[in-house]
């Protein structure tokens, strides 16, 4: 698979990143050479091997359904860039219609 400028622009859009034309150029080349490495890995036959999403053996890790005290709002909210009356304040979300 080759990384094209269009793909980098698409990914930037999905990730809400603003890239300059120079950056698009540079990332296209860098990502493309990275993908070359995966191409090499892809040549191995893994048809009969399950993907290793986790390194531990699959066992369930559960918690019981018990309420634990939440964080205090006063401690949590200052972490966000802006807040107002207990709510997290964000730039106005515009729903196109």
């Amino acid at each position, binding site marked *: 698979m080759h990384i094209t400028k269009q793909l980098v622009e*698409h990914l930037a*859009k*999905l*990730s*809400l990143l603003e890239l300059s034309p120079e950056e698009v150029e540079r990332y296209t080349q860098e990502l493309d050479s990275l993908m070359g490495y995966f191409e090499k890995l892809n040549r191995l036959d893994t048809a009969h091997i399950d*993907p290793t*999403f*986790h390194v*531990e053996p*699959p*066992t*369930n*890790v*559960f*918690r*019981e*359904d*018990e*309420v*634990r*005290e*939440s*964080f205090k*709002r006063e401690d*949590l*909210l200052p*972490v966000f860039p*802006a807040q*107002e*009356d*207990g*709510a*997290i*304040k*964000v*730039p*106005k*979300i*515009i*729903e*196109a*219609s």
Partner: protein
Amino acid sequence: MNYEPVIGLEVHAQLKTQSKIFCGCSTKFDAKENELTCPVCTGMPGCLPVLNKRAVEFAIKMALATQCRINEKSLFARKHYFYPDLPKGYQISHYDKHLAQKGHIEISIGGQIKKIRLHRIHMEEDAGKNIHGTFSSYVNLNRAGIPLIEIVSEPDVRSSQEAGAYLREIRSILRYLEVCDGNMEEGSFRCDVNVSVRPVGQKEFGIRCEVKNINSFRFVEKAIEYEMGRQIEVLESGAKVIQETRLWDSDQNKTFSMRSKEEAHDYRYFPEPDLHPLIVEPHWVEEIKRTLPELSSEKKTRFIKMYQLSEYDASLLTQEKSLAQYFESVVEICKEPKLATNWILSELLREFGPEQVESSPITPQHLGELLVLIMKGTISGKIAKHVFEKMLQTGQAPQAIVQKEGLVQVSDSTQIEALVEEVLKEQKVFVDKYHAGQAKLFGFFVGEVMKKSHGKANPAMVNEFLKKKLKGA
């Protein structure tokens, strides 16, 4: 040309757990903004989600009740999109390897049973809530991390009426299982509808539109009818339906295109590295299966057989588990299923919705006792209605009300005979008319006797004495 709709439905049901799906924050509805949050559900770096075992059990219950096949191994994934109500930048959801699939439920349409297949049931976390102000938007993350199951049907539904019946049945099953309260206003039961139309007889499906977030059954039915009309119009004009997401506007009774999220439909799913695959071993499923309650359709069949109820009455009584339990408690006391049915359906359900009967001031014990008083002849049916009103207002036992107000039915023959004679003497003119052929006056005499007894005379005995005396007079 004649068209038919092809409809598929997606239900998001909030599981009734105490705590969220991946953290210990409470799921209660009435809390201050952002009060029920912690580093896990606000997406702080470095914290780990841990799956709530009861949420899994609830999801398995629903899968079993809808005849789904449960996968021994399922996998959570990250679904990426950017929106302020999604603090992590991704939603954790089953993907690809779902919890359960290939189930079905049955709905009843005009007396006919129709099977609607389920494509799958999967688990996911809810997002937060945005409120839009004039210059800014405000995010409340109390809902972020609430456990949901998504129930996806196959495109088997063929009318708005069937869609309504399907949703009601799904909601009923969820409520019977006590895994979701089904409250549409509070958002614990939400539905999205996929609608397409095709000429009758055509095998291929048409191009579909998804109508999102409709918050009442009536609106679902209306939205489907609107979409059918709109899409048929598009096709008739020679154009093509555009596949898109639309929103229902309940003020204008129409759907409109929601273009804002269109191009972001590349969710870049990948397996959630912070969660192990979910292993559901057969013995766990068996264990859960043993705890399944009798569901409404089974209960309905049993009620028809056991209590000789009509199908209509049985379906009304079993629409809500607590109502069905109420009915059975009343029958246990009065042993008269038909009488209990009439009083519950016509009196109790006039005052309360099926879901509120449980918390009505009239306990099943008291209603049962009231019906016993009628059957024993202690009070007449008419007086019973008066006692019922008093029970509603005071929550007192029927015997107490009957005694306090002196409402015991008069069944003493000398007393009734005397009342009858008195009335016939007073109404001499009408008695003559009666004998002259105006037989309808009989009812008038009954009324007069009842009035004199303040409604307490035994109506059957009044009838009997009147007949006897009028014949003899």
